């Protein structure tokens, strides 16, 4: 069986979630690998959510919000941008390839773009193969303390 990556998508309610909705109503074709969680704003995304997803076995994480300047809460997406940049730098230290994580801007009218973004991240994660983070953690937990 070919490897089908499991990707967790955390989407802002106003732009990206609606955009993903539009992709559905517009019958845009894209891989079914992203499992979506809705938050009110990309600013709500605590970096621990991303790490939790990886820890629970996700092969990739996609955070999507409104385009800069379009945030429903004025500038939540800028705050997300700041946090996610830092997180991106830290992922390698955890042994997670940075390619497995993405922050994207998808507006409510960009159904096509949502499809494109999902296709891209799915392809990229497929190339990287299954994430080792969960297994590594499990193995470590299983090893009795010296």
């Amino acid at each position: 069986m070919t490897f089908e990556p499991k990707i967790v998508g955390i989407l802002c309610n106003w732009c990206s979630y609606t955009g993903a909705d539009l992709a559905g109503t517009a019958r845009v074709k894209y891989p079914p690998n992203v499992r979506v969680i809705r938050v009110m704003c990309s600013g709500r995304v605590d970096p621990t959510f991303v790490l939790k997803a990886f820890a629970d076995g996700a092969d990739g994480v996609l955070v999507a919000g409104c385009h800069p300047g379009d945030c429903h809460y004025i500038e939540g997406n800028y705050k997300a941008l700041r946090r996610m940049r830092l997180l991106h730098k830290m992922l390698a230290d955890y042994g997670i390839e940075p390619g497995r994580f993405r922050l994207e801007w998808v507006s409510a009218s960009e159904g096509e773009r949502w499809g494109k973004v999902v296709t891209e991240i799915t392809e990229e994660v497929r190339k990287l193969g299954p994430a080792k983070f969960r297994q590594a953690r499990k193995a470590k937990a299983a090893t009795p303390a010296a």
Partner: protein
Amino acid sequence: MKTIKLKINGIETEAEDRTPILAIAEKLGIRIPTLCHHPILEPYGVCRICTVEVRVGRRIRMVTACNYPATNGIEVLTDSERVRRDRRMILEWFMSRCGHVPVIEKLAAEYGITEPRFGRGDEECILCGLCVRVCSDVVGAHALGFFNRGTTRVVSTAYDETSPKCISCGACAYVCPTGCIKIEDDEMLIRKELPLGPLTPVHIPFMQAIPHKPVIDRESCIHFKTGDCKICEKVCEVKAIDHTQTDHVDEFDVGAVILATGFKDFDPSCMPEYGYGKYKNVLTGIEFERMNSASGPTGGRILMAGGGEPKSVAIVHCVGSRDERHHKYCSRVCCMYALKFAHLIKEKTGAEVYNFYIDMRCFGKGYEEFYHRLLEEEVRFVRGRAASVSDFPLNHTEVGKLVVRVEDTLIGQVRRIPVDMVVLATGLEPQADAKDLARTLHISCGDGFFAERHPKLAPVSTATEGIFIAGVCQGPKDIPDTVAQASAAASQAQTLICMGEIEIEAATAFVNDEICSGCRICNTLCSLSAIRYDEEKKISVINDVLCKGCGTCAAACPSAAITARHFTDQQIFSEIEGVLYDVRT
């Protein structure tokens, strides 16, 4: 004050003691000719033309009406044979000095002088002194004065040189009864021509201004230059003018705010290829609109800078809009106002009209029909963005014309079209300070136009509850759309006010008092300013009414003291576990 009784031309009347006869006569509607008199100046009594006959008891005196104070019991005759004889003599003396001045000639004709006995002089100034007095008493510039004595007396500036004290107000020329003071350099006038039309310092900004009341322009008002004048204050009967007034800030408590801050017209000076500012016959849309206004400077006539109607006019579309260098968006209104202009030019002048367009966007009700009507009116449409406007002729047909260079994409050729006038259909752009206002009101503002909460479902609401937007401040739109949006914004505001109570977001965030360490990280993060630091308790507090529940603070709280209702960390963790159920097991 004592009231006196007197008779003028046999009419008995009452007046305050020592009122000048001229003022009393004016009230009775009796006309006495004057030359050196002006209601805003003190009487001077120098021209003598207002001479009247005054009888006090048996004594008869000839006096000047403008400055003779009336006393009790006098009898005044303003048009007796003796008065007419004296005035004739005065006029003849005037004519011996100024024989060809219209105002004197008109008076002379009234008094039956056909040929003056002492000949006709060629002077223009009658030395009435109105200019000297207005300059010092009213304007306060003291630039003019009398020089020399007797027959060589003249009005001039000091040493007959251009006076540095002159503020170019033009008051002297305005009061001069003979028209011997002329303004030579119009550019020097305080009432400098504003774009297409003169404006007095006291004016109503525009016809539809609300409130419809005059304002004083500090730049050109004489009072703010010399500290004097204040004529407007003197003539205003209700005493509404106050020169000491300054701008002040008023504070209002309101339940809703509607933003209708409009737009700024695109300034094509930054596009040297169209020669705006270089060639006088290159106008922007709004300038041409002003010219077409019946209450405008040309009274609605389409005139070129040098006078005369144009024989051909070019209308350049998409100036500043749909242009990578300036604004990428379409300004929406330009196509239709350009068509209106084309129609007006055809109707008023019959000139040849060329439209240089990229696409004709006639999107509204009846708009396409209007476009077809213009096609039938033989307005020319050339599909292609105009490349340049220049006055450099390549052949005799282009001499003295503005030449528009354009690639006609329908015939695949570069064309040069000579015209008399070019109208640039300038686009709309956001107000320069729109972003500051957006920041103040906590609303979002993408490219300078305020963002609505939802493009379809909340088109006049903003991210901040109670703030609504209408008109071009939200995005380029024409008048019908603006009115529709304004009505929507008004009713939304009204709805909010009428409810008495407001519904607030349920999914807000709250701070756990016991965990909050008072680090204040969240305070600055909140873009709606809903978080306040409680100095007494040393913790941060979230205002439930302002909070919209975005959760940014909850994500940032280092001690996890903030919980975003309905989107708690625990809930999201469970969701993550849920969506990954198959890999976890």
